[in-house]
């Protein structure tokens, strides 16, 4: 890929901010707008920007594609696992009340974990889509 100094410098400056913003949207989704879906997409855009600027091979060195497949499944497992844990604790499936000492704490922990699972799956799935499309033309 043709080196482009301005793009490289700007991307290096912007990417950490995008990731920081994604984490904010992820973990502040209980209080402000946002949540797992939005955070996952924003998180993946940071890596997509990276691979657009620095090339696909460099990006795949950072996140190997087999990791992405594991992560995409891991998010669903976290989500469904929270439901199974609440089931084992004697509650209904995906009823977070029994996860904490009281109802508020349980709901809070459950929502946090569930949103984390959503975020991981969405981010990994978006990157899988991008790498599948962008990597198709080469080799």
């Amino acid at each position, binding site marked *: 890929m043709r080196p482009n100094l301005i793009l490289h410098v700007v991307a290096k400056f912007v990417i950490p901010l995008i990731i920081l913003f994604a984490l904010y949207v992820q973990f502040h*989704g209980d209080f402000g707008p946002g949540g797992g879906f*939005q955070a996952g997409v924003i998180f993946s855009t940071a890596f997509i920007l990276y691979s657009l600027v620095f090339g696909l091979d460099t990006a795949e060195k950072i996140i190997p594609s087999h990791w992405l497949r594991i992560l995409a499944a891991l998010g669903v497992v976290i989500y469904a696992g929270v439901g199974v844990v609440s089931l084992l604790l004697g509650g209904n499936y995906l009823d977070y009340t029994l996860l904490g000492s009281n109802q508020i704490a349980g709901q809070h922990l459950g929502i946090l974990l569930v949103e984390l699972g959503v975020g991981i799956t969405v981010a990994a799935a978006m990157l899988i889509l991008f790498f599948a499309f962008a990597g198709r033309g080469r080799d």
Partner: protein
Amino acid sequence: MIDIVINITLLAFLAITSVAIVRMTNLFAIVMLFGIFSLLSAGLFVVMDAPDVAFTEAAVGAGISTVLMLATLALVRRPQKPFYAEAPSSHRAWLPLIVVAITASALVYGTRDIPGFGAPGAPAQTHVARYYIENALPETGVPNIVTAVLASYRGFDTLGEVTVIFTAAVAVLLLIGGRRPKSPVKTKDEGKQDEA
């Protein structure tokens, strides 16, 4: 008052963008205009006090899907010339015009029954919304009602949505993921075995 001005401006830009998309033949420019369309819709959602939806629209519609469409364009590598030099003259222009006019008048007639935006008597406000607004904070301790509904009250739905996204990723991987297999050039021995 300022809301109306912003609404009309955004809707006018949306209309201009859609007309431009229809009239354009350069696929690259059309993809860019799709992104602009999504960004304008996101602005419209912000004006309508739906920042969660605006977030998604801006990130997915304007960001990811534009990149994916550009990747697809780079993939097919077709010369992006229109199929026809001009619209085929086998049908007359008035037939679609009549269809569009009838549909549009039916839609406009239908809007007469829609309750006003944010009207307290609207069906959207009188069903379960009242329960969520009154009980979401004491029951879940989460100030953002959208998150409370999405992750807690409607946890099953969201689990289904996440599974759909996971399935989509798996489907894409199955269809076009991985390395393309080497073109099946048979060696001489294999060709002989096939014949035998």
